[in-house]
C-alpha cells in the first residue's frame, strides 16, 4: 500500500470529526452560527479591548508593587492582606457604608415623595419637575464647590441664615469641622444631588400604572396609604429595586463630593474608599496598592451588580 493510500482513512476520520464538531456547534449555537460570530466579533473585540483587558491589567497591577515610573514587581496577594489589617482602610470601609446607606435611604424617601407630589394634581407641574431636576443636571463639581461655601463657618450662607436671619442658633455650626456634622454634610450634598434621579424614575413608573387599579382599590374602600402600599409600590417594584441598586453603586463610588468638601477629613472622619484610593494613588504614588483598595470591595459590588442585572433582565422579559 502506498503512503498516500494509507493517509486516506486518517483524513476521512479527521473530516468526520470536523463535521461532527460543526454539527455540534450548529446544534448549540444555531444553524447560522458562523454569520452570528461574524456579527458578534466586532463588539466582542471592543469589549475585550476596552473592558476585559483594562480590568485584567488592573487585577494584575493590584498584585504588584508598582511605583510611578518603575516597572511593577509581583507580590501576589500582599496588598490585599496588608489592607485587611490596615486601620485606615477599615475606617474608610465603614465610612463608605455609612455614606452609601445614609444617602441611598434618604434619597429613596425623598425621591418617592417627589414622585408622589408630581403625580398629584398640582399647578405648574412641569415647572416643578424641571426645578427638582436641577440638582441632578448641575455638574457635581460646581454643586460641591457651592456647598463648600455654603457650609463655611464664618462666611457661609447656612450659618448666616441660622444665626443672623432666623436666629435659630446662638452661634454657627462647624459643618465640615466636626466628624458627625462633616459626615452628615457630605451625605446631605449627595442626597441633594441624587434624589431627583429617584423621583423622576419613580414618576415614570407611577405613570405606567393603570388608573383603573386605583379606581378599583378606591371602590373597595382602600385608604390613600393602602393604595400606595398595595398598588403603587407593587407597580414600581422593579424600577424601585433597579434605582436603589444603581444608586448604591454610584454612591459607593462617589469621589467628587467628599473630596471637594472634606478631602476625607477632619482627621479621616469622612474618608471613604474612592478618596482613600486617590490618596494612595496620587498622594503616596503606590499604584498597585491603590488599585487593590479599589478592587477590594469589588465582590460586594459585583453581588449588587448581579442582582441588578437579573432584575433588569426580568423587567425586559415582562
Amino acid at each position, binding site marked *: 500500500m502506498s503512503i498516500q493510500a494509507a493517509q486516506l482513512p486518517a483524513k476521512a476520520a479527521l473530516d468526520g470529526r470536523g463535521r461532527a464538531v460543526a454539527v455540534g456547534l450548529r446544534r448549540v449555537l444555531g444553524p447560522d452560527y458562523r454569520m452570528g460570530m461574524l456579527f458578534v466579533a466586532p463588539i466582542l473585540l471592543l469589549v475585550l479591548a476596552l473592558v476585559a483587558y483594562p480590568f485584567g491589567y488592573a487585577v494584575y497591577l493590584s498584585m504588584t508593587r508598582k511605583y510611578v*515610573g518603575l516597572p511593577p514587581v509581583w507580590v501576589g496577594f500582599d496588598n490585599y492582606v496588608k489592607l485587611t489589617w490596615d*486601620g485606615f482602610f477599615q475606617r474608610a470601609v465603614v465610612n463608605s457604608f455609612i455614606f452609601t446607606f445614609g444617602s441611598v435611604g434618604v434619597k429613596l424617601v425623598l425621591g418617592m415623595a417627589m414622585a408622589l407630589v408630581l403625580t398629584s394634581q398640582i399647578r405648574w407641574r412641569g415647572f416643578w419637575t424641571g426645578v427638582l431636576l436641577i440638582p441632578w443636571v448641575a455638574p457635581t463639581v460646581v454643586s460641591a464647590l457651592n456647598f463648600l461655601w455654603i457650609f463655611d463657618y464664618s462666611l457661609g450662607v447656612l450659618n448666616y441664615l441660622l444665626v443672623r436671619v432666623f436666629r435659630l442658633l446662638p452661634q*454657627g455650626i*462647624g*459643618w*465640615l*469641622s*466636626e466628624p458627625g456634622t462633616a459626615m452628615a454634610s457630605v451625605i446631605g450634598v449627595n442626597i441633594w444631588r441624587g434624589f431627583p434621579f429617584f423621583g423622576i424614575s419613580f414618576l415614570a413608573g407611577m405613570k405606567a400604572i393603570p388608573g383603573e387599579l386605583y379606581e378599583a382599590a378606591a371602590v373597595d374602600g382602600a385608604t390613600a396609604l393602602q393604595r400606595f402600599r398595595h398598588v403603587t409600590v407593587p407597580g414600581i417594584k422593579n424600577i424601585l429595586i433597579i434605582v436603589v441598586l444603581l444608586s448604591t453603586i454610584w454612591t459607593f463610588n462617589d469621589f467628587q463630593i467628599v473630596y471637594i468638601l472634606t478631602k476625607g*477629613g477632619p482627621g479621616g472622619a469622612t474618608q471613604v474608599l474612592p478618596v482613600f484610593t486617590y490618596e494612595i494613588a496620587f498622594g503616596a504614588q503606590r499604584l498597585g496598592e491603590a488599585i487593590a483598595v479599589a478592587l477590594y470591595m469589588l465582590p460586594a459590588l459585583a453581588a449588587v451588580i448581579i442582582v441588578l442585572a437579573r432584575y433588569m433582565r426580568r423587567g425586559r422579559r415582562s
Partner: protein
Amino acid sequence: MDNRLRDLSEQLAAGLIARREFLRKAAVVTGGTAAGLGVLRTMAGAQAKPKLRVWLFKSFVTAGNDVLAKHIETWGQERKVDVELDWATFGDREQKFVAAIEAGNPPDVAEMNLYGPMRYKPALRDVSKVATEIAKAKGGLLPFAEKATKVDGKFLGVPRYAMITVFYIRKDIMEAKGLKPPKLYDPDVVEFAKKTQDAAKDLWGFGQTLNRSDDGDGFMQNILWSYGGGPWDKDGKPALATSNREANLKALQFAVDTIKKHKIQPPGVMGWTDVSNNEAYMAGKLVTTNNGASLYYAMVAKKHELAAKTLLTLTPGGPAGSLVGGSCYNWGIFSKSKHAELGEDLIRWLEDETRFTEYMNASVGQAGPVYKGRADHPYWKSDPNFEAILQNILRSVMPGHPGPMTPAAVEVQAQKTLTDMAGRVVTAGLSPEAALKEAHGRVEEIYKIRRG
C-alpha cells in the same frame, strides 16, 4: 498622470517604442519622481519647527504666570520652536504627572515643586550640567535648593524660586492694642491672639487649620521641628513616637490647644481647606495666620484695604527655635524628551537675570531666591514685608530634617500624616499619645515600603 508617462504611453500606443523600453523608461520616471518627493519631504521636514511640550505650575499669583508664559512664547518665536504650553495647579499637578509618566507621554520640560525630582526620578533626565552652570553664574545655590533638586548626586531639577510661608499680622489691630509681633507660639501667639480677638464680632486671634491641607501639614511640620521634634531623626529613621516623642507630644498638644483650650481659632477651622484662611483673613475675620506670599499678592493686586494694614513677620518659633519648611520650584527635563538640548536652552533663557527679575517683580514676594546672587537683589528691600519672606527662605529646611530628604519623608508629607494625627486628637477624641503612636505606625510603614 505625469506628462512624461503620458508621452511614453502614447509612444507605446503608436508603436514608436517597444514595451520593454516603455517599462524601463516608466520605471525611471516613477522612481525619479518618488525619490524627488522623498527629498522634498525631507527638506520640508528639516524646515518644520520642532515642538516642545512645556508644563507650568499655575500659581495663585496670576501676574507671574502671565510673565512666564510670555517669556516662553518669546523664546519659541526666537528659536523657531513650536511651544505647547499646559498648566497644572496645586490641585491637579500630581495626577497630571503620574498619568503622563505612566502613559509614557510626559512633557519635554516641566516646572516641578520640591517633591518632583525625588518623586519622578525614574522618568527624569540628569540636568547636572545646566544646573551647575546656572548656579555658578548666580553665585551658587542656597543649601535647601541643592537638597531639593539633587538626588543621588545628580541634579534632576534646575532650581527656579522658593515659595515660603510667613506669619501675617493685622498691623492696625496690633498697634491699637499696643502689642509687638509675637516671636514664640507659646505663649506669645496665644497671648497676642487672646488680647486681639473678639469672638462676638467673629474676629479670631489666630487662623491655622489642622485639617488635611498643604497649609495644615506645613504648620504641623514646622511646629514639631520648632519644639525640637519631627517625624525623622538625623539618620532619616522614623522618630515620631520614639526619640522625638517628648518634643512631638508637646508640639502636638500646643497645636490642639490653640483650638480646644485657648480657643483662639474660629470654630470651623478644622473644616478649612488651603484657601479658607486666605478668605477669612481678607474678610477681616483673622488677626494672624500663616500663609505664603500669594495672600499678600492677592491683597496688593486687588488694592485690598488690608494690604496696607498687614505686617508679614518671621514664623513664630518654639523651644528649639523657629524652623520653617522650605520649597524649591524647579525645572525638570523628562528622559523621553527628544529635544533635551532645546529644553536646556529654554531653562537658560528663563533663568536669565533680566527675565527672572521681571517675573519676580510681578510675583510680589512669591518668587524667593534659590541662588545666593538673587538673595542680594535690591528687590527684597523694596517692601518692608519682603524681609520676612527672604529670611524665612534663607533659614528653611526640607522634609526629612534633621536627616536627609528621602522618598519616605516626601510621602509622609504628601499623605498628610501629620494633620491626620492632629485631626484625630481634635475631632476624634484620641489622646495626643495615642494619635502620636498611630501616626508613628504610618510613618514606620511608609519608611519600610519606601526603603524596600
